[in-house]
């Protein structure tokens, strides 16, 4: 039943959105914590396996990378690049704050130190952490405020979140969360000082395994004068059992 419903929604998204708008107004009394929980329920999972495509716009050249990522929570992730040919076979393994990269060209495993995780991936507007880890908002952030707002004709909650720990990459986030699907439509990521670091906008919501997930995202590093980085989910699976060896260094060879 559910599955049927899902595919139905997938095909008639616009209609459905209009339909549920009414329903949501009824649930107006939802608490901020509940909103975050609903978002996590959509985005976060014990494990995620997805194939994605990232288009990086450099000053002169643009290129698109395809990769497959296996992640478990925000501490374990494994990514393998699929294309272009030059990058195919490159593997990344993130365990806690350690990152190893295996490249077939060098046949070597190279460890990047902790803060490298926060560096941009290949000149993109995303860091390794942005790309690979699955942040559970409810665990990492506290809600400071929540407002109802219309974002791009969608009723949404504008939530302001503050990180629970100091080591969080983004001390503060502003999220425009679709009031119906509980998926962020836009995010602003702030530094501790209050400086806006990155901005992301999400679109092309798709329902996958009963969750709503934005499959198209555009990230922009607000300190750079770039065109931003496009990120597309080509396929996504939640809560699949991932063989433990994928999160061990053995997988890199």
């Amino acid at each position, binding site marked *: 039943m559910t599955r049927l419903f899902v595919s139905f929604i997938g095909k008639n998204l616009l209609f459905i959105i209009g339909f549920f708008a009414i329903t949501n107004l009824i649930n107006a009394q939802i608490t901020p914590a509940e909103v975050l929980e609903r978002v996590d329920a959509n985005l976060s999972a014990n494990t995620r396996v997805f194939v994605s495509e990232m288009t990086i716009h450099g000053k002169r050249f643009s290129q698109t990378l395809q990769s497959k990522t296996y992640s478990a929570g925000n501490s374990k992730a494994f990514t393998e690049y699929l294309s272009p040919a030059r990058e195919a076979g490159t593997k990344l393994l993130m365990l806690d704050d350690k990152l190893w990269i295996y490249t077939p060209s060098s046949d070597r495993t190279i460890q990047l130190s902790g*803060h490298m995780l*926060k560096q941009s991936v290949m000149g993109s507007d995303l860091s390794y952490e942005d790309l690979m880890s699955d942040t559970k908002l409810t665990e990492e952030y506290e809600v400071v405020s929540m407002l109802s707002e219309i974002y791009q004709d969608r009723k949404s909650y504008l939530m302001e979140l503050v990180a629970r720990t*100091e080591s969080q990459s983004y*001390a503060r986030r502003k999220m425009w969360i679709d009031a119906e699907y509980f998926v962020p439509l836009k995010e602003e990521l702030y530094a*501790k*000082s209050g*400086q806006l*670091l990155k901005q992301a906008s999400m679109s092309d919501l798709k329902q996958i395994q009963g969750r709503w997930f934005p499959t198209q995202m555009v990230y922009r590093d607000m*300190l*750079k004068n770039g065109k931003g980085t496009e990120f597309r989910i080509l396929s996504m699976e939640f809560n699949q059992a991932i063989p433990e060896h994928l999160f061990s260094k053995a997988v890199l060879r």
Partner: protein
Amino acid sequence: MKLAIYIAFKNLLGAGLRTWINVLVLSFSFVAIIWIKGIMLGWDHQAKSQLIEWEIGHGQYWHTNYDPNDSFTWDDSHASPSDTLLNAIKEGRYAAILVAQGVIYPEGRMVPVCLKGINTTQQVLKIPTSFLSQEENSKSSAIPVMMGAYMANSCQLKEGDQFLVRWRDKDGVFDAREMELVKVFATPVPTVDAGQIWLDCSTLQNMMGLNNEITLLSLPSNESNELLFSNEFQFKSKEFLLSDIEKMVQMKSKGQSVFYLVLLVLAMLAIFDTQVLSVFKRRREIGTYIALGYTRSEVVRLFTIEGGVYALLASALALLYGYPFLLWQYRNGFKMPVDVAEFGIAGSNHIYPLFSLALILGTFLLIAFTTLLVSYLPARKIAALNPAETLKGRLS
């Protein structure tokens, strides 16, 4: 000997113009060598003392992990000094600096920089830290910072401009803020200028989340003051910190020695020529000296001393015009023939030469010795002369 010097003086003074040209040449070389060497010494000294004044003080304490040239080490090279030391830093007795990496974005361009937080109270370094004190700049929410003229120029920034800076705090988390350039200072020391942004130490400590922690410390005097420091800091002597520049200086001086050599050779050429003529032309005089009771070797000595007297006369002449000239140079400096500022480089247009007693005496001895040598070489021929023949003045 005394007599020989007396006669030598007499002979030279009696020779008139010829002597004075030689003396002029010699004194010229004398002054030129001292002058050039003095300028070079002054230049080197200036470079060193500027480095001391602007960057290193009279020695530094570094955090044990700190390597100024490896920015990878900066994340882990800071510690909190003892309370006594903190007070001393607050009073400005030391210049305490916290070093961190950052990136600034002037008009969207990306420039990696070294952030240096320094206590605004410090009296050790010439960096005008008072411009950074918070009271002065409380109007703006941006972080007040300074940079050297070269850096400001290459980033195309001027006083009052604001720009973004991004850095990683102690947890490696990126943060960013606006900075306002409150002061552009001119410094002759590139290592406190290029690629550096100076801000209040406590501001940087806050930004980094490193309370009271510092990376290095410059001392106002030679004291090493072991007691003040925990073993997280290591003493770096002034000599160590100046060793790079010292190497450069040694390298340079080798190339310069050719100048002195050629100047000397020129002066010696004049004296040599004169001596050759003397031996050739004054044969009868040589014979007379022998007839009057000189041995030949005494005549050789007399002629050699005559050469030496050139050096004495030259020194006297050099003193006459060289002293006021060198003194004037010493006081007013040697104006570089090129205006440094025109090229967007801060620095002094004047080099203040340094004349040490050792330099002057050394040059004098060098000249006196070589003069004696070239005077001796032609005079040596006298020993081979037959006195009976020389008396007739005939060529043998």
